[in-house]
């Protein structure tokens, strides 16, 4: 046990009405990758915030490097080498990579660009990161930004690095890159606290897993001595049988046919969607999946090709046209494109369907409320009131509101773009069940997903895109990670 670098002892944090952390004690060992696992709201983030000094604990002590503290402050935590990489990046887009990495490490004197670039380059070489230190952060992909963020933490001689959902935005190959960096860090005796909803990652990279539930510490297990089902059971506190609901897909009528569609990121894509089918759309990030969906939906410009709905050629020029034609889109970025965070839940659900919720052509508050209450029940949106602002809801419930908004228009074809990104396992299961119900009721779904497990589990058929083109179609019988991946990387 001489290896313990950080101890959180009996940490309790109360907020008005809720106990966010209830007597949580965890130990972290040097050079280990230690996962924190739990549903949204289990208290992982609060624990991390206590460690980084962003939140003050009410009770308990933190023992770091053999020194014991009642509370951390941001400065104190920094001086002990704790670096947190949050889900929302803290990089400055208008500065270069080198400037971002050296930000804060040099507070005095004139900034020396050459030196910054040299420092950054040395760091990147060491971890084999191929990013130009001189490029501007805003021009980088999310994955590259993630790497910069990690490099920034490393450059500060971090002894403990906390990664909050580091892979949420990464593609398979980039995830591998991240693993490599993590292994490298491990060799240098850096402790990594790893938060992720993706279970398969934990088995790949972590040494032990601490499970939290409802603000309480549940247990810590060695990753090698457990399995997926046990972890889920510990996390949820009940057995989740059958993550992906079973169903029979009857392939008959073609609902949507896309012929030679081209957009600014797509080149002559063709496919068919059957009634009652979930069609998976796979590919690496940048393969043009979201862009394809947006072209079909009329959100981006179509440069060529045609769309047939129930065999009839349909000219979709705007999202309005698409909704009229019976297509719904649940966008990838829920906060930016999906909901109106400042508005109430009922308002959000009604907005797409408002023309049908009028009395004498005037908006009817009563009908809006009824429709929203209906969806709240159907989708199990957890909120004290549908008059709550959507910004106050958790990610899973926000996603349900977006779903309700799209379902309210009663579309036959629904495109789900990353339907469960950043959503905890319970809510995820509910969304899967809902998707199943939808197809059983004769709707058809196109699902874009970077989560391989979800893609293989939910789809009836998978179409793989690479560099904007269809590189293959996989039938349910032939589903395997390898097939899909090799098509996606177009090897």
């Amino acid at each position, binding site marked *: 046990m001489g290896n313990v670098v950080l101890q959180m002892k009996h940490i309790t944090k109360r907020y008005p009405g809720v106990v966010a952390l209830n007597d949580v004690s965890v130990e972290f060992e040097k050079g280990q990758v230690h996962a924190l696992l739990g549903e949204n709201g289990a208290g992982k*983030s*609060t624990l991390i915030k206590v460690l980084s000094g962003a939140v003050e604990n009410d009770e308990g002590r933190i023992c770091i490097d053999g020194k014991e503290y009642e509370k951390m402050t941001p400065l104190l935590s920094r001086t002990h080498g704790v670096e947190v990489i949050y889900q929302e990046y803290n990089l400055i887009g208008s500065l270069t990579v080198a400037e971002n990495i050296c930000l804060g490490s040099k507070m005095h004197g004139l900034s020396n660009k050459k030196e910054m670039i040299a420092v950054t380059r040395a760091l990147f070489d060491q971890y084999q990161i191929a990013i130009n230190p001189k490029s501007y952060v805003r021009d980088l992909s999310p994955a590259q930004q993630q790497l910069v963020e990690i490099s920034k933490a490393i450059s500060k001689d971090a002894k403990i690095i906390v990664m909050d959902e580091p892979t949420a935005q990464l593609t398979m190959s980039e995830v591998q890159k991240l693993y490599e960096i993590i292994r490298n860090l491990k060799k240098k005796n850096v402790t990594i606290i790893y938060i992720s909803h993706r279970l398969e990652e934990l088995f790949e990279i972590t040494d032990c897993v601490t499970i939290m539930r409802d603000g309480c510490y549940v247990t810590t297990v060695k990753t090698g001595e457990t399995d997926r089902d046990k972890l889920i059971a510990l996390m949820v506190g009940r057995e989740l049988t059958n993550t992906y609901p079973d169903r029979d897909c009857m392939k008959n009528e073609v609902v949507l046919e896309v012929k030679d569609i081209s957009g600014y990121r797509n080149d002559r894509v063709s496919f068919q969607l059957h009634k009652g089918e979930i069609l998976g759309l796979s590919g690496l990030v940048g393969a043009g999946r979201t862009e394809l969906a947006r072209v079909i939906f009329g959100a981006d410009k179509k440069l060529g090709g045609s769309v047939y709905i129930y065999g009839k050629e349909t000219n979709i020029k705007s999202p309005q046209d698409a909704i009229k034609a019976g297509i719904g889109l649940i*966008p990838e970025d829920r906060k930016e*494109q999906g909901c*109106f965070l400042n508005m109430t839940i009922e308002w959000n659900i009604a907005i797409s369907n408002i023309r049908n919720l009028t009395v004498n052509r005037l908006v009817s508050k009563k009908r809006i409320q009824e429709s929203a209450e209906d969806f709240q029940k159907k989708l199990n949106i957890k909120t004290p009131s549908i008059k709550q602002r959507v910004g106050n809801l958790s990610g899973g419930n926000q996603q349900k509101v977006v779903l309700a908004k799209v379902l309210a228009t009663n579309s036959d074809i629904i495109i789900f773009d990353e339907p469960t990104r950043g959503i905890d396992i319970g809510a995820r299961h509910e969304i899967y069940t809902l998707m199943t119900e939808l197809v059983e009721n004769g709707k058809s779904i196109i699902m874009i997903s970077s989560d391989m497990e979800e893609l293989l589990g939910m789809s009836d058929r998978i179409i793989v895109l690479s560099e904007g083109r269809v590189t293959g179609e996989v039938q349910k019988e032939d589903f395997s990670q390898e097939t899909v991946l090799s098509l996606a990387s177009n090897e």
Partner: protein
Amino acid sequence: MNDGNTKNDKIKAILKSNVMLIILLLLLIVFGIMSKNFLTFKNLMNICTQNAYFIIASIGVAMIMISGGTDLSVGQIISVVGVCVAIFMQRAGLPIPIAILLGLILGGVLGCFNGFAANLLKIHPMIVTLATMTMFQGISYTISGSQSFFNFADSYKNIGQGYVGPVSVPVIVAIIIAIMIHFVLEMTCFGRFVYATGGNGEAARLAGINTKRIRVIVFALGGILFAISAVILTSRGGSANSTIGPGTEFDAITACVLGGVSFIGGEGKVKGVVIGCLILGVLSNGMQLIGLGIYVQYIVKGIILMLSIGYDTYQKQAKVKKVTSAKAAA
């Protein structure tokens, strides 16, 4: 005990959501105590009449701001319309109603132009209207030839100077417009779409709203409101020239912000805007009555603006903090 608490909470909540109304009432009381001429029906009606044009223009700006834009060309639109209506009547000899109607159409067209330009160039309306503001100024002076127009017909002057019973015509017009726009924003689909467009433009578009069209319509409606306020302004003053109007834009934005219209869009109510306008109006009038010079008035106005908006923002942040901490906890 518990009941008392919730009652207190309720009162607190009501107070908090009506901060600006309370400030307005406080101002009325303070000025009422300091000057015995202030709290008279005549003076209060005078304040309302003086500010009727301003309320109408501010409502137009508010609508544009709710949709996610801003309009800096308000004053210049007023100027162009004021001058043109005068020319329509005096040089072209058109009947007054037609001249006014043409003026309203002109306002709408200028507004449309702002909206189209913002859509087409994909630039924030603030920058677009910064450019059109200069353009419209040039247009106004070119048309007027830097001349002033006087001697309007009495029936025109009546619009700005007339009374129906004890209430002045401009006030009646302002009330009608406030009610209409409130109704449009709250009760129609279009109103919802305006809030949606301002709240999250991309989400609104993906929800099937033609956000470009909404933007143009909002600017056009705004233009018409500015034209109405130009008519009231020139008929009340009995003269029109190119310097009448400019300057309104910043006062209008000030009133909107005071009244709780979000600068980023998606939030705001007509009621708030009217209160914002009245606060500014009461301040000017009150300070004049107690004998403060115009420059002191500017200083006081600035301080009040900073304090009230600062307080409002502080409150909102406190709310956000509470929410986020509760969320972190949940």
